[in-house]
């Protein structure tokens, strides 16, 4: 059987097994086996990387019928559950999608797809992320969910079979999204990821998580509406249902449906004005946040928009999408400064980085697409590492407030180093994200330097919030106990692998660029980016320099005399408090800068959402 179809079906099969397995041992075994199969199969995708696009017919009446049946069932179920929870806007959204779709399916123009499945380098890149990073998250979830339920024994009902079922269905649907050439199929998988995320966010069944789950559902259904209507327009007016045909059609004819499809992509990748669902998704257990943020959900969004980069290039609609990305990057980076909840910082940083990718996709030049693909890879690995670390830290220190993380270097040294590595991977030279940011900047100044303004100011904010957090991890006040031994192996394995990957994708980035990114850009634009050999050498030198840093800790601090910190008074023994002017011991405290008055969420988020909405409408209007 061909690999893409195998990946979709294998994940589905593992998911179905997990739904019926009740025993924990057997579940562990199944998840690990599933991970291994998916991992090996994803690596097998490299086989396709030697060639260009490959199409697979995959005609199956059974598959079509099953999808149709599943769609009807899911629509009805959504309507039912929305009515139960009095969310009538969602009922409306479902009806607005489902009814026209079924109507045109039966009474409208019928278009047959020639090839249902395809593989090219962009799908390979995203599939690799889904398979490897997503798979690692599933492994991690084993240990995490055990701790999670031990911790919330009373509050949260143990529904782990459902949980793991959803995780693997998610992976399956993601593979479906990236390999579908038939837009009808793509739409089906798209909706499945929406529903999975809805169920996963609502896993805790608390009031807050139910609320946020419905918010995610609503915003993604809104995007799905764009998808459905774009699909109908394409089918009825243009007579097209395949991605590859769409890509070579004349821009003037397809720009409106493409814009509609991009709305779905923007919603899924949590761009303003849709960004609030991703922030709400933070209530879910950490593996869900990691899956939604780094490898799956949001990557589906940027994947779709990036697909259309070639069509968007040079159009006003494309420029509006680029602006949405730029505005999102700027506002999300600013707001991230004010967040002290680690997961929210990660969420805002995700939104910001996806904004960068969308920005690149919107301008759609060959350099921008090159940069965007690298961003996708680097972001997925480093962000996933950060999420998984925060998940463990939260379980051990019972808080995910950054301010509570001082002394982590003593209490959880390995995790603290991994966190720092992940952060370095997110913004620091010479790590991955910075390489891509450099490429983005280059692409922007060649296209329209005014867009670079957003990047420049946003990057200044980015640096601020990451270093602030990094610094907090280094601060030590008083003694602390090492609590790292209780972290389970199923958590360590993904953490170590991801740390390793974070470094490796940076070291081997010229190779990755050459075998995965360059062929795609060449195929679509017939030209590609070449990085100067000199600059690569310099990056390597910097990498070596940074690599020396951890080594310097061996045998460090020998010829020094350790004294107490200066506290502005007579220190009391222990060095963490001093005698104040009333001769009363006063404990020292160090609080971070959050600049809430200036960059606060309440102040900036509405501004971002409104500008996003205006730009989105403008983009639609320009298509008409």
């Amino acid at each position, binding site marked *: 059987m061909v690999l893409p179809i195998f990946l979709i079906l294998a994940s589905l099969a593992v998911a179905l097994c997990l739904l019926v397995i009740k025993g924990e041992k057997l579940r562990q075994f199944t998840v690990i086996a599933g991970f291994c199969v998916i991992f090996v199969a994803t690596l097998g995708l490299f086989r396709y990387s030697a060639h260009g696009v490959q199409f697979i017919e995959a005609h199956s009446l059974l598959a079509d019928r099953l999808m149709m049946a599943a769609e009807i069932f899911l629509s009805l179920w959504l309507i039912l559950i929305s009515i139960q929870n009095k969310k009538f806007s969602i009922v409306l959204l479902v009806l607005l999608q489902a009814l026209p779709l079924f109507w045109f399916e039966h009474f409208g123009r019928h278009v047959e797809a020639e090839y249902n499945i395809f593989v090219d380098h962009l799908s390979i890149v995203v599939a690799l992320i889904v398979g490897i990073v997503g798979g690692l998250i599933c492994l991690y979830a084993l240990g995490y969910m055990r701790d999670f339920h031990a911790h919330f024994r009373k509050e949260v009902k143990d529904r782990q079979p459902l949980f793991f079922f959803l995780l693997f269905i998610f992976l399956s649907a993601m593979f479906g999204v990236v390999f579908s050439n038939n837009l009808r199929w793509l739409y089906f998988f798209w909706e499945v990821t929406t529903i999975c995320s809805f169920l996963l966010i609502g896993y805790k069944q608390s009031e807050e998580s139910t609320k946020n789950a419905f918010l995610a559902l609503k915003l993604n259904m809104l995007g799905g509406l764009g998808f459905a209507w774009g699909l109908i327009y394409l089918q009825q007016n243009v007579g097209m249902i395949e991605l590859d045909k769409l890509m070579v059609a004349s821009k003037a004819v397809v720009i409106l449906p493409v814009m509609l499809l991009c709305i779905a992509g923007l919603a899924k990748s949590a761009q303003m004005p849709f960004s609030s669902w991703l922030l709400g998704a933070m209530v879910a257990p950490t593996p869900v946040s990691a899956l939604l943020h780094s490898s799956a959900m949001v990557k589906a969004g940027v994947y779709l928009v990036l697909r259309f980069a070639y069509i968007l290039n040079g159009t006003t609609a494309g420029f509006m999408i680029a602006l949405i990305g730029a505005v999102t990057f700027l506002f999300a980076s600013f707001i991230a400064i004010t967040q002290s909840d680690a997961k929210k910082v990660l969420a805002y940083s995700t939104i910001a980085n996806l904004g960068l990718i969308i920005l690149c996709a919107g301008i759609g030049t060959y350099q921008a697409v090159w940069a965007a693909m690298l961003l996708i890879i680097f972001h997925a690995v480093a962000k996933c590492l950060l999420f998984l670390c925060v998940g463990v830290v939260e379980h051990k220190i019972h808080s995910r407030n950054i301010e509570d993380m001082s002394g982590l270097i003593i209490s959880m040294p390995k995790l603290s180093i991994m966190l720092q590595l992940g952060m370095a991977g997110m913004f620091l030279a010479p790590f991955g994200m910075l390489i891509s940011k450099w490429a983005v900047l280059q692409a922007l100044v060649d296209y329209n330097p005014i867009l670079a303004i957003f990047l*420049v100011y946003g990057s200044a904010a980015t640096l601020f919030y990451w*270093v602030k957090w990094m610094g907090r991890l280094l601060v030590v006040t008083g003694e602390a106990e090492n609590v790292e031994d209780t972290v389970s192996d199923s958590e360590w394995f993904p953490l170590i692998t991801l740390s390793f990957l974070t470094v490796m994708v940076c070291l081997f980035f010229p190779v990755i660029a050459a075998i995965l990114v360059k062929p795609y850009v060449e195929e679509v634009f017939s030209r590609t980016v070449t990085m100067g050999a000199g600059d690569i050498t310099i990056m390597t030198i910097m990498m070596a320099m940074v690599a020396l840093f951890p080594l310097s800790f061996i045998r460090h601090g020998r010829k020094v005399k350790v004294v107490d910190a200066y506290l502005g008074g007579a220190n009391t023994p222990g060095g963490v408090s001093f005698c104040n002017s009333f001769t009363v011991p006063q404990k020292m405290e160090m609080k971070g800068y959050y600049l809430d008055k200036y960059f606060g969420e309440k102040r900036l988020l509405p501004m971002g959402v409104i500008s996003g909405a205006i730009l989105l409408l403008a983009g639609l209007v320009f298509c008409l």
Partner: protein
Amino acid sequence: MPMKIFFQVLLYIIFAPVVGGILAGLDRKFSARLQGRVGPPVLQPFYDVLKLLEKENLVVRRSQNLYIWFFLVVIIFTGALFFAGGNLLLVAFAFALGSIFFVLAGFKASSPYSFIGAQRELIQIAAYEPAIFFTAIGIYMVTRSFEVHTAVAFPKPLIIFLPGVFFSLFYIMDIKLRKSPFDISTSHHAHQEVVKGITTEFSGKALAAIEVAHWYETVIILGFVYLFCASNIFLGILLSLAAFFAVVFVDNSTARAKWQAVLFSSWIVTFVTSVTNITVLYYLHK
């Protein structure tokens, strides 16, 4: 060619601290005269550093000085990239990396004063970063290259095309040279509200390293200024020196600003001058 670059870099590594140190000495002399004092000898900064090298190494956390050593190394590397004629964006990234090592050192020291200083230093970095990037972008818009050597080889003075960008660079020079009104992270006077800010817990060799790194930084930032008039070597040097002493003069005539003023004024000035400048250039080229 590689030989020439090698010598450029070597000259920079050897002479940048000398130039930086002498400038620091001249700065003190000049400031003293402005305040009606005689002032220390011009070579005083070197005596200070030599003396620091003799001192005992006092630390709060054992590893804190490692960050300082890497700060120094990365700053030297940044300058080497710059004086080898390398890519301005890479120079900017490396510059930021160096500064981040310094900030992390401040955090690592785990003292309230260095902690506040480190955060303020971060605000300073956030304040000057945009201007540095716009300098690179502006130079690119004129010369169509991010390379320093192309900028130097450009036949006309860049300042003619980039007056706004130059002004924003001049504005943030004050931050990078740690001068009032923008010296919020390491105040020069230990009795003030944050004691010695980020450097509070550093002594001996580490403090000497911070000093030397600062000399290198001074030379790098003056190198940036030089690029704006690189077509004529004398005018270029004159422009750099004029900018330096203008900053010293401002230092002597202003009181320290709050962080809000540092951050937002830098951003706004950069926006108004650099962005206007770049926008105009963009539409002219179009």
